[in-house]
Each structure stands twice: as C-alpha cells, then as structure tokens.
C-alpha cells in the first residue's frame, strides 16, 4: 500500500517533469485518488488512428507495481486487440509479461506501439482481427479510420 503510493507519487513527479519530452502522452492523475489515472494518447502517425486522441483509464491496484495496472480505452477504437465495447486491452505486458520496472508512462508507450502494430492472432475484437487475418488491410484501415473520426477526433463545426 505504502510502496505503491510512494511509487505512484514518484511517477507523478516524473510525469510532470517529462510532460514536454513526450508530447504524444498526457498522463493525468485523479485529483482525489492517486490510484486512478487517465491518459490521453495521440494516435500514431501513418496508422488509421492518426490525428485521433484516445483516452485511457488506469486503475492501479494496491499491489502495484508488482501487479500491472488495469488499463482500458475510454475512447471507442476499432483495433483487433481492444474490446470494442469495454475498451479492454489485450497486451502481454498488462497481463503475464508485466514487469514492476514498467511505469504508467511506459505502458502508454506500449499501447501506442500496439496501436501501430496490431496483433490479429490474439483478437479481442474479432471483426477487426478477421479483417486483418484475411488480408483485408484496406477494410481494417477504413473501419479503424471511421471509428477514429467518429470517436477520437474533435467534431468539426
């Protein structure tokens, strides 16, 4: 409990310091609860998610950093490894490959990397996974692009 608090506080300070260094990630701690964080990440360039801003919700367990934080997309996203309804993310480092050396910031980076490199073989979103697995890159990209426009980009006008 204390350890996780100290660690999260350290990460908070780290985030404040690195704000400028990583413009793609905005990590914000809940005002009243240091175990709740939200992050805004920019969709990586040259992907269907480019130009979108995606919101992530972090729920940090008390055993953190020995246990991974629970992360999910709040913004709807069409991605083979993200559950379309719940926003749950299928990412090894959030499950069995978690290491206490990771930070919330590095988790964000990993998620950005996952957005750029989907893993259609372990899909949470079967539609998206099937499109990719059947080789319909264009279909996947247009779907992802559409949902990114709908959900992750500021409405024009």
């Amino acid at each position, binding site marked *: 409990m204390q*350890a996780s608090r*100290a660690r999260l506080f*350290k990460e908070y300070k780290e985030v404040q310091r690195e704000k400028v260094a990583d413009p793609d990630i905005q990590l914000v701690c809940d005002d009243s609860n240091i175990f709740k964080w939200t992050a805004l990440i920019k969709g990586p360039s040259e992907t269907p998610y480019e130009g979108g801003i995606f919101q992530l919700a972090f729920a940090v367990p008390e055993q953190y950093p020995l246990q991974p934080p629970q992360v999910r997309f709040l913004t709807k996203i069409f991605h083979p490894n993200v559950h379309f309804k719940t926003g749950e993310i299928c990412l090894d480092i959030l499950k069995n490959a978690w290491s*206490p050396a990771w930070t919330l910031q590095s988790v964000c980076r990993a998620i950005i990397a996952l957005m750029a490199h989907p893993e259609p073989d372990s899909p949470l979103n079967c539609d998206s996974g099937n499109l990719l697995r059947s080789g319909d890159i264009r279909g996947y990209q247009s779907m992802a692009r559409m949902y990114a426009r709908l959900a992750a980009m500021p409405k024009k006008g």
Partner: protein
Amino acid sequence: MSSDSITAASVPSAANARDLGKKKRANRSAKLKQCKLDARREQWLSQGTAKNRGFKEEQNGGVQCGKGGNRALENLEMSSRGEDMDRSIHQDSDLDSPSNSPTSATSSVLGGADSSTNFTGSGSSGSSSSSSSGGCCSGCITEDEEGGGEDDGDGLDDWETMADALAADEDKPQGQNPSSESESVAQVVSPRQVTDGTGLRDGDSKLECPKMVSGACGNSRAWRPDDAFRPRSLPNLSKQQSLPNPDRHYGGGGVAWASKSVVSAPTSCPICCEDLDGTDSSFLPCLCGFRLCLFCHKRILEEDARCPGCRKPYETDPIEAEASVNGGSLTFRLARCCSMITRS
C-alpha cells in the same frame, strides 16, 4: 609529476601490506571459516593479483630468457618500429607464453586483443601489467598455479590486506575517484619512461597499491562488448568501450566504472522508490544488473520471482548470496565462480 609522486608514495605501503599479509597468512584458514563473506571477497581480489603475477611471470620468463631481456627487447622493438608493430609483437608474446591450457590460451588472446587497442599501455613492464590484468579478468587461473608459488602467495596476502583496507574504505570510494584516475593514467604513461630493471617492481607496486584501481581498470579492459567471455551482466560497458579516444579509454573506463558503482548506490529502488541503503545498493540479485531493494526483491520472490529488468526467473539462493556479497563487482562474479571451481 603527479604520477611520480603517487608511485613514490605507493611503494612503502606495498611493503607494509606485504608484512601484514604474511602475518595474515598464518591464520588465514581460521579467517576463512570465521567470515565467509570476507573470504569470498578476498579470494576474488587475491585471484586478481595472483593472476596478474602469474601472467607476468610467464610473459617475462616464458618467452625470452629473462625478465630484463624480454622487456628490453620489446622496448627496443617498440621504439624502432612504432606502435603498430609493437602491438603485434605484444600480441605474439601473449600468444606464445601461456599455451599450457585452454583457459590460459584464451585469456592471453583476450589480453592481446586488449593491448591492441591500448596504444600507450602496450609498452614494457607496464604493458604486461595491462594485458595481464586483461587476462586475469577473463576468468582463468591456471597461471597462478604454474607461475611460481612463493610470489603468488605474496600476492595473495597482499591482496588480502588490500581487501581489508578496501572493505574499510568502501563506504567512501568517491574520494578515490580522482586518485584512481591519475593512477590508471600513471600506469599507462610511465612504462614509456621506465626501461631499466626497476620497471617491473614499479609496475607491481602500482598494481598493488591503488586499492580499487587495478580492479576497476582491469574491469574496464577485461571484455570487449562482443567478447564471448563477456558476461551478460555488464550493462553499460559497451558505451565506455566505444569511447573515441583510445588513450583515455581504459582510465576513463575504470573511473566511469568506479563512479558508476558509486553513483548507482544511493539512488532509490526503481520498484518502491524508497532510498537504497548500503545493503540494498550492494545487492545484485540478477545477472542483468537490475537493482532493487531487498524488500521488493522478497516481495517479487513471493509472487512470480522474475527479475523486473530482464523478466528471467531469479536464480536460486547460492547465486543470490554471492551477488549480495560482491555487490557492485558483479562483473567478476562469473569469472570468479569458474576459477573457484577449477581451483579446488
């Protein structure tokens, strides 16, 4: 100037250490039993010198008829042919001399490779010291069994006393950094000036006296990043190996190593962000070099028992204890383990 004064000061202390070492030798076995941790550290350190000496002996006695002759010849050739030739000659002597066992052969090859990048160091007596310490770190101990018992014993004892002094000084090695740099520089520079018979003695005292220095320098020149013998536990040396200036290469590496072990000590645990105390900072549970506090380590052992740095499962207890004993000197651990096994 500075190198002169340092070596002058270091000679008497070497003699002193020798006397003390002889006394120690009498009750060494008792001491070994008494404190396992101390014994391990001492053994490690003493192997370092013993190998240094043994290797030196071989180099000087094995190839040519005598020490002086060998050195003088090398020196002459060095001055007449220039540095490239000198390097190759040096390598030759390295390759010729041991050839007694596979381990010694590989170590000498390593030493030769080392000396090829170290221009100023590959001279006469000092050259043997530099290359031999390269050999010593590569985990071969056969030389100290062949290379002359009495001398080795002395070296061992010297290093025990040095190790004691070291243990006392270890808390504040920061202050030694400047001196260690100048020492290593002196070690590199002076062989060019010293050509007569006193050279070897001089080199010896230089090796023995600066407490951590020869260890630290030996460290940095022991492995190249692509060496097969280089343990995976050397995280940052590759950066140092790529330093552009070959003259400052080893001195700089040694100091950087020393300062690295010093600097990384007071930082906080990356897991819980608590400050690392002395025990924690000398605690190295994994070969990958990922440090954490004992508390977090225990908690991780209770959970999935994998190192946060490399995600490999933590080794079982013996290695753990070893790591905690050696602390920052994890680089030597592999070499030491092997040599201890071959020795007994």
